[in-house]
């Protein structure tokens, strides 16, 4: 150590670039070391980053893509798709389009892809499925002398002479479509390509989205009303008691949602524990309808989601020392007023975080309404599952999912604007 000292003091006084013991420039050496450290850090994070990319980000983008994806007509009727783009969309398409259609249908028949096209076109005009299948079955066509393909088609089925059917083909002759997103919002595309509200008897999803938001709103309100006082109580209890009670809050939280919903069915049904207890006590004359309606859905969802309100509120309240309230009171404020002016504003971030969490989880809720609700309680996710599992209409499932995702992102943006941008974090 002592031998190094003079060299060090020399290096420090001389105004030249510093070098390490091996003569290398110190700045270069430090930069390399810094780079190595960064590489190590990246290597540590990489597995998780890749995992998240593959299981989270990629599926989300695929979902978003799927909601506007429209491959059937473009892929299986390629020549028609190309030619129909230049159609004036007033009279019937030209003879070349009909001939291209005949060629495409012949190829599709051989490749056995006719049902896919038929299914897609049938979404826009019902009956299109049978028309396509009937026509494809007759392929390939032998034309008599002087006969046009157009006449032959119309002779086969007069619907081919209807421009509306050709409109549907033209509309779907591109690889993306707003159709699923429009349908999810009870809209449809006019011939001009602008959205308009579907006729009243065809509307469904607006009211389902409305119902989803309405149920989520009330579940959030009930969770806040029940959870926040509990969190306040827990935060102000002695540590031993609050730990014990915290376990009681967490215990159901660790139980499977399915098990909890099933238990609620047992408790709430007509012959269930609650009804029989109330009837035996003579409080009610006949069983209350508690399950398979909105009441049951509210009870079970509030119960399942309560911890999401309690935990963030508790952690925020726990971090507020009692001296704040004491200070406010010593400055002359009434304890109630001090609570609202001093204590409450400091808990807003935690309470809002809990509320947001519950609301976001609610709008995607599936199992509780599915098991404990009537058809009137089914929310958007139920229809996502329905389109995925029952009708195999992935476009609709993806469109509904995308809209849910957009709703969630909007709420989150709203939250960070209202609470996150606040000065609360500076305390």
């Amino acid at each position, binding site marked *: 150590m002592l031998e190094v000292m003079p060299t060090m003091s020399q290096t420090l006084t001389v105004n030249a670039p510093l070098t390490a013991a091996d003569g290398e420039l110190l700045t270069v050496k430090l930069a390399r070391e810094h780079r190595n450290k960064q590489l190590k850090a990246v290597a540590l994070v990489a597995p998780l980053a890749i995992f998240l990319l593959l299981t989270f980000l990629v599926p989300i983008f695929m979902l978003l893509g799927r909601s506007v994806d429209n491959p059937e007509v473009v892929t299986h009727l390629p020549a028609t798709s190309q030619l129909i783009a230049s159609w004036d969309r007033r009279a019937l398409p030209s003879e070349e389009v009909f001939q291209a259609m005949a060629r495409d249908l012949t190829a599709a028949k051989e490749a056995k892809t006719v049902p896919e096209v038929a299914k897609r076109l049938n979404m826009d005009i019902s009956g299109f499925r049978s028309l396509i299948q009937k026509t494809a079955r007759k392929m390939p066509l032998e034309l008599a002398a002087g006969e046009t393909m157009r006449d032959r088609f119309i002779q086969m089925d007069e619907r081919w002479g209807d421009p509306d059917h050709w409109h549907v083909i033209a509309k779907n002759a591109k690889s993306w479509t707003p159709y699923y997103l429009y349908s999810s919002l009870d809209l449809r595309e006019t011939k001009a390509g602008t959205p308009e509200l579907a006729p009243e008897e065809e509307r469904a999803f607006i009211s389902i989205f409305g119902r989803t938001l309405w149920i989520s709103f009330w579940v959030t309100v009930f969770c806040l009303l029940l959870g926040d006082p509990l969190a306040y109580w827990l935060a102000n209890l002695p540590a031993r008691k609050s730990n014990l009670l915290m376990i009681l809050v967490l215990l159901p939280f660790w139980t499977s949602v399915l098990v909890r919903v099933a238990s609620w069915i047992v408790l709430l049904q007509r012959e269930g524990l609650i009804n029989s207890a109330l009837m035996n006590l003579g409080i009610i004359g006949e069983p209350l309808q508690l399950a398979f309606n909105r009441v049951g859905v509210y009870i079970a969802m509030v119960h399942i989601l309560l911890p999401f309100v309690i935990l963030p509120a508790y952690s925020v309240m726990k971090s507020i020392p009692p*001296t*704040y309230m004491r*200070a406010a009171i*010593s*400055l002359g*404020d009434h304890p109630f007023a001090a609570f609202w*002016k001093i204590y409450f504003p400091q808990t807003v971030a935690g309470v809002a975080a809990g509320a947001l969490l519950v609301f976001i989880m609610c709008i995607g809720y599936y199992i509780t309404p599915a098991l404990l609700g009537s058809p009137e309680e089914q929310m958007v996710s139920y229809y996502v599952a329905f389109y995925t599992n029952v009708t195999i209409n992935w476009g609709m499932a993806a469109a509904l999912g995308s809209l849910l995702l957009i709703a969630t992102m909007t709420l989150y943006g709203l939250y960070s604007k209202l609470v996150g941008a606040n000065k*609360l974090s*500076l*305390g």
Partner: protein
Amino acid sequence: MMSEKHTASDTLVSFRGVQKSYDGASLIVKNLDLDIRKGEFLTMLGPSGSGKTTCLMMLAGFETPTHGEIRLGDKLLNHVPPHKRNIGMVFQNYALFPHMTVAENLAYPLTIRKMGKSEITDRVKKALGMVKLDALANRYPGQMSGGQQQRVALARALVFEPQLVLMDEPLGALDKQLREHMQLEIKHIHENLGITVVYVTHDQGEALTMSDRVAVFKDGIIQQIDAANVLYEKPVNSFVANFIGENNTLHGEVVALHDQHCTVRLGNGDTVQAAAVCVGQAGEATSMSIRPERVRLNRHAEACENRLQARLAEFIYFGDHVRLRLDVAGQSGFMVKVPAGELDSSWKVGDKLDIGWMARDIRALDASVYTH
């Protein structure tokens, strides 16, 4: 330091027979009688659990006395809720409202008192000027240093001009240098405003620096309440002698007691003349207290009533002075302070030294178990 003349009308706060128990079994404050004078800086000093903070909290209204009366002026405080007492308070962790700016924090007590907007602005400005923070009115507490937050807390407790301000270990979280600076600043503010301050601390140095009077607490009882210099020079019992400043203790047995003086025999048979302050009768054990700076060495000790032989055990270097640790009359840990200039360079560990002190400087007190 302060006027010894005072009458009943000078008293601002009085505790009469106040007791406090949390569990119903043990008393944390035992029968407290205390008068706090108008304009006084009174410090409650004591180790943790001695009841000093409980007294402060009873005065603030956050605890209620189990028994006894607390009066502010001529008003009985016992049943006045804390928000109606009009007492300023500075908390240990400052308790500044984190979601309000400094100016909003200061305006808070004024808004509650329904003052006009311009008056609030004026007063906030004045209070910020007092603690020299004019430039930081729009900062949030989280953006300030501990010392700055401390000043804001002080300004907030003073801005509504209460006649009494309580401070609960307000400097506990600051580093040493800042703490000493703030001690002086608080003292000056007290002198300028003429308010009454009740200050709680466990730091005896802080108590001595700032206070007009210090009440030393132990086990829920005030052991002694006096001005700082009296506490230091004339402690009434071993606890106070050991708690305030540095102290040397010599244990012995009282052999003769006359009026104000007594003769005490030490363990090795030497006898010492001491002022009898807190001793029983002849034959009882006593602990004598003498301050390190009252002990004289070698030729300075020649004129003293008490002279003893000591063995030099250790030098401890402090820059401006050197402390000598001595073994005296078979007891170790006896400290003497020698200014750096008066140190004899021939001294070394193991040397015999003559030490001595005046009989009035050593006080025979109750036999103690407390040691440094």
